[in-house]
Every structure is written in structure tokens, then in C-alpha cells.
């Protein structure tokens, strides 16, 4: 029983797990976790080179952008102008137009600033980018972003880096039901069961960084996430049984001795 691939701006992916590249002990551990996860896309950030240490380890020396799709983010950007500037540099560095837009607000909760996110999405789309957008779990804003032309809607399940799990199942389900582009839970997943939970809600993929990077054994957690996403997806496609109020024996009652 073949599942259909995840399609983002016309590109097909067999893995529905996207992992981050922040917070790891080092890039080697990150590369090992990536191999264990089976992910085909990694999120990355753009930052100034360290002029005082030109020999510092480079992400691209450990994770090959020709083998794995780099999805540049706009972390640290608070306006549409900042986001466009950052992603133009990323496009020049890597040559891809698929990007992850995140315009954050208060450092305490890192919720997306949705009015600025909508404005930035429009600027990026006008500039030729394929925008995957980190957003609140508000179905109204999700609809506006899809109507603008975003190629994936990526609501949070809980604040970035919190590992609190999927706190907003009703809203995630509503967004899944109304969207015709992929819906990807971005932020909140803390462990494998929560990745499966997001997929069982019908999400097309999940993005997780901290849950893997801050696990005691990140490589093992990466493997767990791989299986969880597959399990959750299969369960969603299979369709769960109806919930019942009372027991229903699995063994027939007839023919008892």
C-alpha cells in the first residue's frame, strides 16, 4: 500500500519528517541524527561568517546540500524587510527558492507576528520565493496565507523549543481540513508519540529540532521520530476505530464452555 509523496512546490519527498540543525552538540552529531531520521529536508539559518575564525566547522561540510534539501529560515527577523533580505542571501548561497518564513514576536513565547508574517509572505512570493510559513494555529490566518500562495502552512503545536506536545488539536485539525497545500506542524513536538499524534490529525509532515537535539541520545530519538511519523501517517490513512463509552469484548461470547 503505497502512500503518495509529500509535495512541496512541485518537489516530491518520500519522508514526512523535516529536522532542524540547531542545538546539536556538533555538526557531526547533527549529521548522524539526520541519517537516522531519514529526513530529506533540513531547516537551516543564515548568519554572518566569523571573521576571526575562518576555519570554523561549516554545516555544509557535514550535511551536503546536494544530498539533502536545505530549507533556509528567517529566525531572528522581525519585519518583512529583514526576512526578504535574509532569504535573498540564502537563495544566492544555495540557489533554492523554497524557504521557511518565520516572523517572530516576543522572545518569551516566540509566537509568530501574524500581521507581519502575512506582509512578509506577500513580499517573498512577489520576489519569486516558494514560501513555507510558520504561523499561529488560527484557521483564519492559515486560510489567508494559503490564498496568498504559500506552498505549506506550518502552525505551531506549542511554543518553539518547549516540547509541550500538540496543545491545539482542534485547531490543527481545522487547518488540515480546510487546506489544499501541505500542513506541517512546526514547533511543539517533544517526543515520538507527539509526532505520531500530529500525523494522526492528518498533518502532511512535521518539523522538529529540539526534541531530537536535546534528547539524551539524539541519534536514537531521530530514529524514533522517523518511525513515529510513519506510524502516525499510516494510522491516519487507516482511519481509527470509533470511540465507545463501554467495553466491547474482542473474543466472541458464543460457544463458551
Amino acid at each position: 500500500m503505497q502512500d503518495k509523496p509529500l509535495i512541496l512546490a512541485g518537489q516530491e519527498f518520500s519522508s514526512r519528517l523535516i529536522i532542524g540543525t540547531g542545538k546539536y552538540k556538533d555538526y557531526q552529531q547533527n549529521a548522524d541524527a539526520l541519517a537516522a531520521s531519514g529526513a530529506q529536508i533540513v531547516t537551516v539559518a543564515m548568519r554572518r561568517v566569523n571573521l576571526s575564525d575562518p576555519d570554523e566547522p561549516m554545516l555544509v561540510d557535514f550535511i551536503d546540500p546536494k544530498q539533502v534539501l536545505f530549507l533556509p529560515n528567517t529566525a531572528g527577523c522581525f519585519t518583512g524587510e529583514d526576512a526578504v533580505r535574509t532569504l535573498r542571501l540564502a537563495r544566492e548561497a544555495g540557489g533554492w527558492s523554497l524557504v521557511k518564513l518565520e516572523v517572530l514576536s516576543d522572545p518569551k513565547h516566540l509566537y509568530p507576528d501574524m500581521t507581519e508574517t502575512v506582509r512578509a509572505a506577500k513580499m517573498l512570493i512577489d520576489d519569486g520565493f516558494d514560501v513555507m510559513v510558520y504561523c499561529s494555529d488560527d484557521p483564519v490566518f492559515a486560510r489567508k496565507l494559503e490564498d496568498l500562495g504559500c506552498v505549506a502552512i506550518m502552525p505551531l503545536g506549542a511554543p518553539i523549543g518547549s516540547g509541550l506536545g500538540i496543545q491545539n488539536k482542534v485547531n490543527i485539525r481545522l487547518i488540515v481540513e480546510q487546506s489544499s497545500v501541505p500542513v506541517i506542524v512546526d514547533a511543539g513536538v517533544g517526543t515520538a508519540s507527539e509526532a505520531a499524534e500530529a500525523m494522526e490529525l492528518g498533518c502532511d509532515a512535521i518539523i522538529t529540532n529540539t526534541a531530537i537535539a536535546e534528547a539524551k541520545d539524539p541519534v536514537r530519538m531521530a530514529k524514533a521520530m522517523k518511525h513515529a511519523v510513519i506510524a502516525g501517517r499510516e494510522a491516519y490513512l487507516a482511519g481509527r476505530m470509533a470511540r465507545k463509552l463501554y467495553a466491547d469484548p474482542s473474543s466472541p461470547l458464543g460457544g463458551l464452555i
Partner: protein
Amino acid sequence: MKITINGELREFNEELTIARMLVALSLVPAKVAVERNLQIVPRSAFGETVLSENDKIEIVRFIGGG
């Protein structure tokens, strides 16, 4: 010639292209992107783009992120 690179003031004695600046900084052109006075410099133009006094240069690369 004074140029600001990633917010740091640097002095160079000779005329400089972006390509030569990267060599002077021991950076590999294929691994970075360069912005000059808020305009992207395409990698293909590194060799012919000559820097001017008081240019503001940003040199960035991919790092780990979520």
C-alpha cells in the same frame, strides 16, 4: 581603503575585488553569500566587483537552525 565587513572596520592597501577580499579573509566563495551596500552580489560577479571606500559588506553562510 576602509571597508566595513560584518560590522567590523577593515583597512586594505590595494584595490580589491570581492573574490580577492574573500581570499584575504581565508573564506571559500562557494560556501558564502555576499551583500554589498544592501545589494546581493551574485557569486558569478565576485571576480569583477571592485570594492569602494566605505563599502558595507555582509558575508554570511548557513549555520544550524530550526
